């Protein structure tokens, strides 16, 4: 502890002597050993300072010019970046519009039943994308369904309003055949095609009761020959001749057959 204190004291004395030397003070009244050490240190400092001051960069002007060029370059770069946020805002706006388009697409898909098919949703999405000028080359689910989604898909106003026609998808069903206007005989079955293109067997009917099938259950009471046939029971042959057949529906046919059977018994 004493030694440490002594060393610190010597160091403190050296520092004081250096300060005194800087101020130009007199060092004669101090320990000669310390005085000698301070003198050696100061001489060394002088040598060191002179040596260091003699070393200098070879040609600082070249490095300076290069550096200032870099400053100018960075400045122009940062000015470009200041302008970039405007474009960024536009990009963000476009991104939002794309999200809106996707939302409309999803909303349209959800309302398939209500708004007339998936094609309607696809049509809406295409419309938005076309308005935005977004190139839309993909044939996604919505477009595929638009083609095969039946007449509503191609015939809805939204689909027709699409500015860019969807190529490669027919808008009409080539297999669709409108109902024939001709007549057929009772009891025959003919093949008809539904608007969606499905072929079905249909029993032959008269033009007045075309495909309604109402007569099956609610035949026209006023024209039912069965009533008169009942009245003219036992006169089957004659009754059949007299019964007017204003509505020769299938119901009437059953009635007539029933009358015939009963009369036959």
């Amino acid at each position, binding site marked *: 502890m004493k030694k440490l204190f002594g060393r610190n004291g010597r160091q403190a004395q050296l520092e004081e002597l250096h300060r005194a030397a*800087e101020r130009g003070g007199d060092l004669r009244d101090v320990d000669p050993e310390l005085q000698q050490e301070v003198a050696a240190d100061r001489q060394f400092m*002088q040598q060191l300072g002179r040596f260091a001051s003699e070393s200098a960069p070879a040609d600082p002007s070249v490095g300076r010019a290069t550096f200032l060029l870099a400053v100018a370059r960075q400045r122009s770069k940062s000015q470009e970046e200041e302008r970039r946020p405007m474009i960024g805002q536009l990009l963000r706006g476009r991104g939002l519009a794309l999200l809106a388009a996707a939302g409309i697409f999803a909303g349209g898909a959800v309302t398939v039943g209500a708004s007339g098919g998936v094609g309607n949703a696809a049509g809406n999405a295409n419309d938005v994308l076309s308005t935005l000028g977004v190139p839309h080359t993909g044939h996604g689910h919505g477009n595929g369904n638009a083609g095969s989604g039946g007449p509503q898909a191609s015939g809805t106003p939204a689909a027709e309003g699409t500015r860019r026609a969807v190529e490669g998808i027919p808008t009409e069903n080539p297999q669709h055949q409108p109902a024939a206007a001709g007549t057929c005989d009772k009891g025959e079955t003919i093949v008809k095609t539904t608007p969606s293109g499905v072929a079905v067997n249909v029993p032959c009917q008269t033009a007045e009761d075309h495909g309604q099938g109402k007569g099956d259950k609610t035949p026209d009471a006023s024209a039912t020959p069965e009533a008169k046939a009942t009245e003219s029971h036992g006169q089957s042959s004659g009754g059949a001749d007299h019964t007017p057949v204003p509505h020769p529906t299938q119901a009437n046919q059953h009635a007539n057959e029933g009358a015939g059977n009963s009369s036959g018994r």
Partner: protein
Amino acid sequence: MERAPRHEDDAAAEGALAARLRALDQAAWAALYDRHHAQLWRYSYGRTGSRDAADDVAAQVFAEALSSIDRYRYKGRPILAWLYAIARNLTSKHLRRTQRDAPGEYVEPSGGSLEEGLDSMVLADALERLTAEQREVVVLRFYAGYSTGEIAAAMGKREAAVYSLEVRAIGALRRQLEQSGGTFPVEADKNSPLPGIDKVR
């Protein structure tokens, strides 16, 4: 050489300079370069003993300062402290790389006279044996030529502490060179009075 700020006016001027630097004002950067490049070059030269290394480090200090000026905020410490921190890191990195790639290998002095190169290497070698703080103080003081006040601000220490480090470092460095038998070719002018620490420039 301009002094680092010690008064409020200087601090305000330093803050204004920092703002101009952030705005990439070319005149401000030119002033900063002119004020500190030679000192930082000498600092690196003193520590590495190589002119090439000093050229590289000094150039990199300003390049890094330029690239990171957006993140720099003036908080009362002089800009020199910021530059010094960059220079110290780059120099240390250079020394680590040199020692790793070629430990103990003789590096031919580049540029300057052969004597100067050898002396600088002898000094750099002796400096490496000092403590890190003593080495920093000696190089900043005698190579870079900064005042005790500037060094204190750069290192974040009190002036009295820096002065104490200076005195210890000088004594240790001198004794090291004497023990190794190295001669210091630059003779002190015996007719001139011994310089005060703040007068050695």
